[in-house]
């Protein structure tokens, strides 16, 4: 079960419009897809008789402010424990339409992972049972991991930037 086989099978199943950007980074197959295909793709990979990608290792967000058509990304790390193969699926949305369907129906662990992506980047997951902030305060009104926000607390009064060389 090589990376080429997986890529070919996915393209054959979903079409080249939905599975593109196929690269191999350091031995790991990366595949990009669209928001409409992600849930069927996850189910397909879960139920596939040979691939058996039934473990969601991680789910994270990413922000590319320089590319408005691909501004926010969600990166899914899948792992097939039986075959010892990993797979990364990426999906990109724009700032105006920052909605991605949830996969909590299939993987229970995606619950907090998606909440974290929402908390940090503002990516809304449609169908999530509790789309709220998880790590930050509920009253926080911005999404801190976005590139436009600084690391430090903008509202602090004492640490004067000029004295610290900022």
């Amino acid at each position, binding site marked *: 079960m090589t990376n080429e086989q997986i890529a070919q099978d996915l393209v054959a199943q979903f079409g080249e419009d939905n599975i593109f950007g196929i690269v191999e980074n350091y031995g790991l197959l990366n595949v990009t897809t669209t928001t409409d295909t992600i849930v069927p793709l996850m189910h397909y990979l879960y139920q596939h008789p040979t691939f058996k990608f*039934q473990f969601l290792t*991680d789910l994270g967000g990413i922000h590319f402010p320089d590319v408005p058509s691909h501004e926010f990304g969600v990166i899914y790390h899948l792992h097939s424990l039986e075959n010892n193969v*990993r797979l990364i699926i990426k999906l990109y949305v724009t700032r105006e339409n920052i909605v991605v369907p949830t996969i909590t129906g299939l993987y*229970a662990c995606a619950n907090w992972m998606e909440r974290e992506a929402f908390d940090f980047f503002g990516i809304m997951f449609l169908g999530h049972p509790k789309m709220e*902030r998880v790590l*930050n305060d509920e009253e926080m009104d911005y999404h801190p991991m976005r590139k436009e926000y600084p690391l430090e607390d903008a509202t602090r009064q004492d640490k004067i930037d000029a004295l610290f060389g900022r």
Partner: protein
Amino acid sequence: MSEIALVSSPFVGLEKAQLDKKYVNELTTLNLGPTHPATHGIFQNILTMDGETIIDAEQTVGYIHRAFEKIAERRPLYQITTLTDRMNYCSSPINNMGWHMTVEKLLGVEVPKRAQYIRVIMMELARLADHIICNSILAVDTGALTGFLYVMQWREHIYEIYEEMCGARLTTNMGRCGGMERDLSKEAIRKIQVLLDDFPPVLREFESLVKRNRIFMDRTIDVGAISAERALNYGFTGPNLRAAGVDYDVRAMNPYSSYEDFDFEVPVGTKGDTYDRFLVRGEEMWQSLKIIKQALNNLPEGPFHADAPHYYLPDKNEVYSNMEALIYHFKIVMGEIDAPVGEVYHSVEGGNGELGFYLVSDGGRAPYRLKFRRPCYIYYQAFPEMIKGSTLSDAIVTMSSMNVIAGELDA
């Protein structure tokens, strides 16, 4: 009065007819708040209880969110090691080594065998330290304080070995990209040998206190059980998953840093309850001792760091005398050397499971995006499901056996 109880409970949204009338008046809400004894860390559970039985739990985490991922976007690659220390602070060297391996994968640096063996020794010592704390605190939560005090002595010994290697006890910042910062000194080897000789009887004694203790077994068997299917669905890894019956160990499945040279077993439980988690961790401690013994006996000769002058800081004596070394030192510290553009994911077997680092580099000095795959954060979601229907004391014991470390939970 029952209306108010309904609004403040997690059953908001359910029709009143769906709840048994008699039931509604008896539910209490208990706050197993962020500050609670047994020093596990700060995370909150609001339990809805019917008398002594837990019906539901609502979790709040993030009380120690320190924005590691955002800080990492600011720091050069070699400075992020100090951040990784503070994630799972009971076993810092594993986090450090995992990070170094991720960077080495990105940069394409080959680490010599001796450095790999030293890394294995340090990682297994860290795993020992982590499991010592977890198992002894589990015993403390059931009331057995003696075991904790007894094995903590040996944890101090492990700290002394860390000090020989890197200078610090807890937040070790051990190793460098390309190997280790110094060789294993004679004193460190002597101390590791003392650990290998004198710790097994201590561990045996600790186990004899607790393992077949009737009270401990009654407190922990069939408590907080989770099936293998649910555990996999919840993204469990590490001892918690192995207790449920799935033998997934990153060291065995995707060996890194010469783990394939060592002969060790991966202990697996059957029921996924607290007792199985305790036993799996206990057995992993024995396997760690076995690995350390093999590594120490077969320690190969050779350099303790890679020959990668672009990434590995040169020896300080060289810097003061050799022009090239001075230039490399300057370039590395001032960040003149860029990393290649790329994305890499590497995972190691942390004390709690698969600790993964997803590094997206845009060619600059600092990562563009660094995501930590933190096992505690992922499996702690299953906690309400594991304690539904059990009593409060069972919930405490379950939480303790899951080894949730707040630094890794929130990052």
